[in-house]
């Protein structure tokens, strides 16, 4: 893979042709899968949401080496920010391009709020505290319907506005150049743009002074500090950046679903996003994207387990939902045993694991 990339870099023309092909494929994808029904476009959108989440978590876990098990809290914060500002719940209907930055900022603030008290914690202690933080956020969302009704409690918030850009509403179908641009297709393009922005930010971050500082912290905190890296600021920055991407993803989730409830933000979601990062290869952007796409599309395919079982055994022997999560769990265990660096490991991570270093 790396070899292939270096050869590509020697031929810029080939590189551009490659990019053009990928771009064309991504542009046509919703129409190709759309032929099988809009459900599959929705699956694509979910996959893109998970890519955003996984890239955000990758900043915290992959780049800075801070194991965060409560990441979904930021997703929840973003989702609820959008829902409260664009639904009949408070009677507010702000436009999407105002809410998204607000969601970004609110999640960012939450990221710093979580980050500040846990700066001194490392490794598994940090994992447990962030897990606790995620649960606290969920419990509060679940119960903040009294005495003042803020989140509408377990019922969740309904009738959230879809995205509107000028005259184009994302809840209706528009026809353009002979093609039907349905709601999910338009969301697909919007998500794709957001994902591309996040990827660019990630790549630029990784190669920057900040990215190298994070890597240094991940490798050895004490040495990094001795080299003059401001641990506090760098760690807070990692939490804030990761959280803000989660917040944006949450906002999009709200808009696409039109309905959110605390159930969507349980610990398992955090674990699933972490599994994506781990499966793909912590700290490696293409790997993380691959992990997110695989783990979000593959379970959809498992939905066919139920009819298949009916055909073979005559009844549902295994609960498909249980089977889906079971496979997640098994995948995490097997990956840790046989490919601990992930499917597409980052170069640094490969070296570390080869020498058995602590991370």
């Amino acid at each position, binding site marked *: 893979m790396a070899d292939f990339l270096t050869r590509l870099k020697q031929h810029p023309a080939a590189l551009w042709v490659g990019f053009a092909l990928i771009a064309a494929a991504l542009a046509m994808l919703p129409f190709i899968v759309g032929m099988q029904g809009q459900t599959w476009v929705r699956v694509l959108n979910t996959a893109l949401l998970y890519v955003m989440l996984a890239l955000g978590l990758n900043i915290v876990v992959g780049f800075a080496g801070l194991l965060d098990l409560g990441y979904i809290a930021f997703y929840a914060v973003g989702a609820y920010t959008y829902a409260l500002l664009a639904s009949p719940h408070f009677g507010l209907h702000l436009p999407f391009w105002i809410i998204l930055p607000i969601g970004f900022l609110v999640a960012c603030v939450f990221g710093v709020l979580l980050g500040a008290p*846990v700066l001194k914690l*490392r490794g598994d202690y940090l994992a447990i505290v962030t897990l606790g933080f995620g649960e606290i956020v969920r419990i509060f969302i679940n119960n903040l319907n009294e005495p003042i009704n803020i989140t509408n409690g377990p019922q969740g918030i309904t009738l959230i506005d879809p995205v509107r850009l000028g005259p184009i509403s994302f809840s209706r179908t528009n026809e353009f150049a002979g093609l039907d641009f349905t709601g999910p297709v338009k969301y697909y393009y919007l998500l794709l743009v957001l994902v591309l922005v996040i990827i660019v930010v990630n790549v630029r971050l990784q190669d920057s002074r900040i990215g190298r500082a994070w890597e240094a912290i991940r490798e050895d905190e004490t040495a990094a500090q001795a080299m003059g890296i401001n641990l506090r600021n760098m760690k807070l920055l990692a939490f804030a950046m990761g959280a803000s991407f989660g917040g944006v993803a949450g906002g999009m989730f709200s808009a696409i679903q039109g309905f959110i409830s605390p159930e969507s933000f349980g610990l398992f979601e955090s674990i699933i996003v972490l599994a994506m990062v781990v499966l793909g290869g912590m700290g490696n952007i293409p790997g993380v994207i691959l992990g997110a796409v695989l783990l979000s599309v593959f379970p959809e395919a498992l939905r066919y387990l139920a009819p298949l079982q009916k055909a073979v055994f005559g009844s549902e022997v295994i609960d498909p939902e249980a089977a889906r999560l079971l496979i997640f*769990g098994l995948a995490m265990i097997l990956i840790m045993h046989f490919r*601990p660096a992930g499917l597409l490991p980052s170069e640094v991570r490969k070296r570390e694991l080869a020498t058995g*270093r602590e991370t």
Partner: protein
Amino acid sequence: MDIFLQQIVNGVTLGSIYALVALGYTMVYGIIGLINFAHGEVVMIGALTAFSVITGLLGASAGMPVGLIVALGLAAAVLVCTVLAFSIEKVAYRPLRRASRLAPLITAIGMSIVLQNVAMMIWGRNYLRFPELFATERYVFGGASITGLQIAIVLLAAGVMALLLLMIHKTRLGTAMRATAQNPEVAGLMGININTAISVAFVVGAALAAVAGLMVMTYYQVAYYHMGFILGLKAFTAAVLGGIGNLAGAMLGGLLLGVIEALGAGYIGDLTFGVLGSHYQDVFAFFVLITVLIFRPSGLLGERVGDRA
């Protein structure tokens, strides 16, 4: 005042269950430095096994005394849990003993998901109602009441913990375990079989978990496939509160956490002028956890933790 005393009684009961589970976390963490995320799931498996055996026997034979049925249920739960924990350690954790710290932790999380879903396949996703086995006798003192079941739970937990302390401090095996916890390499050089010591830590922890599972099911009269998760998390909090790796600490932490939770749930309404209600009970454990980790990461009775990870 009567609420205060009543909440103390409830807190101590729940706390002794937390303590039993916390011991499992603390033994494993003390000996191999792993947060065994799957431990809460072992409690759940213990509870559900006991559920199946007890309800099965109750239905099958009318003549059997209830005490014997419960004892059989407990024995079955202990057997299943110890075999399970032994195999988990051997298959999932042992190959990763020399890997980076993240690998076993993620494996443990994966194992917890696997166990939950296997349990869901076996016992279904519904809440299973556990019958009330013993007639509820209430003893009233100073405005608070205590049930016979609560007394039984506290006494049984105390007995089991006393046995554990005897085993750890008075037997050769216990000495071997303590040596392995202090320094596995040197312990190995002294002729101690480290693998045995580690396996025993898992097995003993699982036996305690099975007892705790039966207790928590009898106390709340319900069992379900995801009951172990939050219980495990609270027990882990208890272990951290007392000082992880420290047996007495886990017991103290469990009792304290139970009391804090019960008092918190009883008084949060008054303290916040009705803004927050007792449904925030689960939040206390997390606040305690976060506060302890930030201000005294070594816990109440723990020694220096150092730079683990």
